């Protein structure tokens, strides 16, 4: 048993770390430290830098522009990226639709879409959830009816993250409403966001920001060649997509960065004239967070080491199923503790977006995003299969209930 990185792995980590130090633009790092919400332009600029280096989608097969790294290297890369911190490659293209296209798409789709995902020429968004289809995703109602060489799409998607920036949306649509099981009549369609009949309506979230949207489809014409794989097999592709996210789901690097920042700022902020970090109750809460994080880091490493050893395993290491639950809880506790560092200065509402502002801050200049960050991160135990759904999955798959 060896928990530390090998010499080779450490050398790789140093290479990655140096690359971030030398190549992440300062303004982007600053945005990541302060709010964690880069602008569209920052995302595009940073993704081009990564893509130029050949690191636009590290986990993809090399033939499609990936790196050929194993699970351990991918893990180290994401850890270092989050801990720097720099924005992770936009997941909707790189983690979600990209692998679906290179696994199930045809040759033309691969050539058309994959290169444009790597450098963010195309900004993708995800059209899965609907107002009536959240945890019960298979109950989705958006209809696609084939007419000649087009599908006519009608319906509504929701919680569509950053759809306001998107060029394309990948959608689950119902193509066979009479199938004997709801999962069986679903197809996977790629839709140009500039198509006539698409309307995007922003949803202001609890933190005041606009990150998610509703997307309406009103007789939208989609060429049949935009179908991925086979008609009515979309559910299989969706399951593949959702099961694809094991290496990064716990976001250890991000929480490590957050814990470090909490400790740093708690050393500056005063409580009764003394640094907050000297308050025993606070210090113990931070220590407890670090203990849980340390343990989850090792759980993550166990899963990664297992993936590296058994690349073709049909069933994942059972421990992988807790990464989402524990990872999201820890991320939420980080935002909560950071908010607590600010004390009463977490209370003033300073701006309802994550853009830079010129007016002088109220209180410490790092206080403005603390409460919104906490509000915003309630999402992490809800999206990607809520923690309750995760528990259902573990109950069935691991405990055999």
């Amino acid at each position, binding site marked *: *048993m060896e928990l530390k990185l090998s010499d080779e792995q450490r050398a790789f980590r140093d290479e990655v770390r140096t690359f971030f130090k030398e190549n992440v633009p300062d303004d982007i790092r600053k945005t990541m430290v302060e709010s964690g919400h880069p602008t569209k332009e920052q995302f595009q600029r940073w993704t081009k830098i990564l893509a130029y280096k050949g690191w636009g989608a590290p986990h993809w097969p090399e033939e499609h522009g990936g790196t050929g790294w194993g699970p351990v290297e991918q893990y180290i890369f994401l850890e270092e990226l989050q801990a720097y911190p720099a924005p992770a490659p936009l997941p909707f293209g790189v983690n979600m639709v990209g692998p679906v296209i290179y696994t199930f798409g045809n040759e033309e789709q691969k050539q058309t879409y994959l290169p444009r995902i790597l450098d963010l020429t195309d900004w993708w968004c995800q059209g899965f959830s609907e107002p009536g289809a959240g945890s019960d995703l298979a109950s989705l109602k958006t209809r696609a009816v084939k007419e000649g060489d087009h599908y006519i799409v009608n319906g509504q998607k929701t919680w569509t993250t950053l759809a306001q920036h998107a060029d394309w949306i990948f959608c689950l649509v119902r193509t066979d409403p009479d199938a004997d099981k709801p999962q069986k009549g679903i197809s996977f369609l790629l839709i140009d966001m500039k198509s006539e009949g698409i309307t995007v309506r922003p949803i202001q979230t609890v933190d005041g920001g606009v990150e998610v949207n509703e997307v309406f489809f009103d007789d939208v014409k989609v060429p049949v060649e935009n179908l991925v794989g086979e008609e009515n097999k979309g559910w299989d592709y969706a399951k593949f997509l959702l099961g694809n996210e094991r290496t990064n789901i716990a976001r250890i690097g991000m929480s490590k960065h957050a814990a*470090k920042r909490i400790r740093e700022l708690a050393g500056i902020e005063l409580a009764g004239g003394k640094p907050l970090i000297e308050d025993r109750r606070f210090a113990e809460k931070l220590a407890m967070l*670090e*203990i849980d994080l340390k343990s989850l880091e090792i759980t993550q490493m166990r899963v990664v080491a297992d993936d590296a050893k058994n690349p073709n395993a049909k069933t994942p290491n*059972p421990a992988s199923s807790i990464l989402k639950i*524990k990872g999201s809880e820890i991320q939420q506790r980080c935002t909560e503790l950071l908010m607590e560092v600010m004390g009463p200065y977490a209370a003033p509402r300073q701006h309802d977006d994550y853009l830079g502002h010129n007016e002088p801050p109220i209180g410490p200049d790092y206080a403005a995003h603390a409460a919104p960050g906490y509000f915003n991160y309630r999402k992490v135990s809800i999206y990607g299969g809520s923690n*309750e759904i995760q528990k259902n999955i573990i109950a069935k798959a691991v*405990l055999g209930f």
Partner: protein
Amino acid sequence: MDFDLTEEQSMLKDSLDRLLSDNYGFEDREKIRKAEPGWSRDVWAQLAELGLLMLPFAEEDGGFGGGPEDVMLAMESLGGALSLEPFLATVVLAGGALREAGSDEQRGELVPQIVGGELVMALAHGERGARYTLSHVETTAKKDGDSYVLNGEKSIVLHGADAHKLIVSARTSDDAADEDGISLFLVDADADGISRRGYRLQDDRPAAEITLSDVRVPDSARLGAEGQGYGVLAKVHDQAIAALAAEAVGLLTRILATTTQYLKDRKQFGVPIAKFQVLQHDSVDIFVALEQIRSIAMYATSEADNEDAEIRSRAASAAKVMLGQDGRKAAETAIQLHGGVGVTMEYAISHYFKRMTVNDMLFGNADHHLKRIAETGSLLES
């Protein structure tokens, strides 16, 4: 980054698990715990024969030359069987002090006897006034010619009543709470001036209160340098905590298996109660605790030999906090899921619950260790 067992380790673990399932099932253990001395000399001899007692001792002393990782494997299996045997007391605690501070002669004499299963030892360190402060030693050792005279009272000494030899901590200088001035002594358990009151802990492990009145030992009985015992005690306690963390993995593995099986078997409202989502989610909480504790046990184990005392201690403390919080919570949940039978002695689950509860009281509880981490800076930088 490597989490695999060696072939040798896998084989040992298989043999140990087989030995325990043949000789240490719940009914076997019931007989053992209800009789004197509260553990099984027969099983202990079998463990010696298997080579389990030699694991962490150096080859030149007659040991196997293993380390904390081998102790982890042993403790996990022993924990699964709710072992009452003196492995922790003899091999990890007293044996650890012997490894750290024993002279060639001391090790040469004692290690082969431990390895052979003939010698049971105990570490007599705790005192009532100390609670969990490791440096708090009021017991004194006064130099008198070429011997020392020991006086004081030692509390909750695991296997203290059955041990043939004790390692006793006593103050040769400085004040009660100082780290300096603590010395360690090898003492025959039946030496003049020693009285022992044996009893069982809540989870049936044997322990003792030990009084030392003018116990005279020769200079040659001192273990390590005079006044330098604290570092030894600190390391040995960190290793014992890593061992308890491994034991907890064994405990929780059984707790989870027993509980999920119970939920599948037990019917109410015409269905197995495993169908109820609330009970499913509570079971998942136990699973999560098990996997997180497995990870932190690996962490404490991997640092248990670290010469950097601060890194080693922080890892041990982190594990002990999780045992006392997540581990106990999981055991409580398991009792709740069992319903009425969970609070009877007849079901194994109650015994697992008690072991987990008592382990929080040994070597510093969760609050003690959380405070210790909070006072020493970030856990993440190590």
